[in-house]
């Protein structure tokens, strides 16, 4: 046992720890370097003599630093998460909730569209040759760049709030799902397909009883990719809506008012949200795949 633990620590944790430590050291050094001129100017203006320690303390505690220190970001995160009730616009969790709502709605729609398209492509030969090339081509378009316009256009059509964002997420999500599911629905062993045929099972029965369970691992692999993309889509879609809620709005207002700490804490929150959602998918995967009888 001890040797195995020793191997994991030596092979995995040690390199990761050293890398993280290096990132931290570089980060603080970068803070000194980037905030240095500003800090020196502030100290000079104060008039009193100052040494290296004063300088470092100043650079690490700037109110609007070019690069905030990790502890500043953590303090801001802690303050914004615990300092206000959950429904307050100053609570970052509230914004994360808004973004997560849009991202998950979009993901749901995208999964639905992706699975329907994949089922069509697998069963109808014409679709495979006519639709699939366009599904692939649709992803070479930088759709995120169109996000503000989609939001404005849908706003003109009377759709505001969650739906425009969710539609953008949907467009981003459906592609990995379609591609993954086309593979997954075809992943059933030819022997099993033949077995289904000997049972005189029709296309629908084969689809539900054989192809769908066989495609589950592919579905979850695609889902993990899609969740991450969906969060990005929701954040970018929030940029043009201006002044409402969501992580993207926090980013934009932070950039307007030079509130760097706010930007960084919103970024960290976005990363946490994304990782949490992927974690949920991972848990769902183990539960569902075990239920479906996979080894």
């Amino acid at each position, binding site marked *: 046992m001890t040797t195995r633990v020793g191997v994991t620590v030596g*092979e*995995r944790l040690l*390199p*990761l720890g*050293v*890398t*993280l430590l290096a*990132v931290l050291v570089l980060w603080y050094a970068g803070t000194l370097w*980037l905030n240095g001129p500003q800090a020196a100017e502030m100290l000079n203006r104060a008039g009193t003599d100052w040494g290296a320690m004063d300088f470092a303390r100043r650079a690490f505690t700037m109110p609007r630093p*070019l690069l905030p220190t990790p502890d500043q970001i953590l303090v801001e995160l802690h303050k914004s998460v615990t300092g206000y009730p959950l429904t307050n616009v100053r609570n970052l969790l509230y914004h994360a909730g808004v973004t997560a709502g849009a991202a998950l709605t979009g993901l749901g729609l995208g999964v639905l569209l992706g699975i329907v398209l994949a089922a069509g492509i697998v069963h109808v*030969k*014409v679709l*495979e*040759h*006519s*639709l699939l*090339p*366009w599904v692939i*081509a649709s*992803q*070479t*378009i*930088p759709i*995120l*760049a*169109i996000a*503000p*316009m989609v939001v*404005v*256009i849908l706003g*003109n*059509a009377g759709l505001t709030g969650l739906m425009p964002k969710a539609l953008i997420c949907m467009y981003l999500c459906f592609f990995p799902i379609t591609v993954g599911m086309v593979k997954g629905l*075809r*992943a059933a062993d*030819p022997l099993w*397909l*033949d077995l289904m*045929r000997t049972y*005189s099972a029709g*296309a629908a029965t084969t689809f539900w009883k054989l192809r769908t369970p066989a495609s589950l691992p592919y579905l979850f692999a695609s889902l993990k990719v899609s969740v*991450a993309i969906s*969060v*990005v889509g929701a*954040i*970018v879609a929030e*940029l*043009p809506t201006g002044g409402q809620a969501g*992580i993207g709005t926090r*980013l*934009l207002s*932070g*950039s307007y008012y030079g509130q*760097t700490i706010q*930007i*960084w804490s919103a*970024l960290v929150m*976005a*990363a946490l949200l*994304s*990782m949490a959602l992927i974690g949920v998918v991972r848990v769902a995967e183990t539960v569902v795949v075990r239920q479906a009888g996979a080894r």
Partner: protein
Amino acid sequence: MSGPVLAQAAGGKAAPARPVRRPSPAGMLPVVAGLAALALFLPIGQRGAEGAAVTWLGHPMALLFLLGAALCVGTGRSAVTPMRSAVMELAAVLLAWALPFHLLGEGFDLGRAWGMWLFLVAATVLLWRVLAVFSAVPGALRSAVVPGLFGLGLLAGWEVVVRGFSVPFILLPAPSAILATTAAQAPVLWADFYQTVVKSVLRGYLIGCGAGFAVAILADRVPFLARGLLPLGNVASAIPIVGIAPIMVMWFGFDWQSKAAVIVVMTFFPMLINTLAGLAASERIQIDLMRSYAAGYWRTLALLRLPNALPFLYNGLKINSTLALIGAIVAEFFGTPVVGMGFRISTEVARMNLDIVWATIVVAALTGSLFYGGLALLERATTAWHPSMRRR
């Protein structure tokens, strides 16, 4: 990959016992005829928005289109091969789809022209039949003509629906209107393209992919570094890196440097991960062979491991091509000199000049597709020998 194998295995064995039930193309023809016959009793348009409804019999030209299409289908029925009849039917589809354009040209209002729309539905079903015949033939017909016709059909449908129902310009302009704006605004679009693509995207892409590649080689030499960086890379693929755009704009100013910086950060990790995966793709026995030839690390890298890693490298480059465009355009939302595709989109949307926005999107879509397509062609040219390219 397993698709054809699977179809053969399943279809070949079981075909005699239980023929695969597909929607038979022949069964669709009565549907087409029925729809077209029903369409005969409905109006095909109004002269102007307030004018009286016009029927097929009241418009000799429309009748000619209908007769022509019917004649084509009829001739196709007596053709020797399914392919020839499909070609005749394709001519009928083209004739049928030309009718709404003719009517729109004469100033008809198609908002309540249910006969017209039903006729078009019949033509679309017929097109489906043609595509079914075409996609049974391997080769250029299947890989180029079928998706081409499908796309053309989508475009034509978009154009006819937008113009026929007079969809407001703010909601969705017709493709022809977008094309006209693209041509008229070419100088502005070119300036935006130059700023965004040539200045920001290309530089950021080259630096980001280059750095990812170089660090991957370094990590390959120093496994300790690889084990530290790989988990970070996996985390980085889960977090929305685009969000650093406002910070980069703050650090590097409004011009292309900040956009390139965003792209460098976005493209670094996908390239790193793909290169590392690619370098691991060579088999033990191949490496042992190189060792028995007394080849050193660099020679093994250049002659064996990098060529073997090419499919992975191209995968990273392709992923990054889209990421780079997105990064540049989104970063421009946060501040830019008064030129650039992201700037154009965000300001003109606010001023409701949606035609130039759509034209910018056309440019962005074309750029993205050409970038990706170019890489795909390059991949085909340089990795044609690789096992992953067989059977295509």
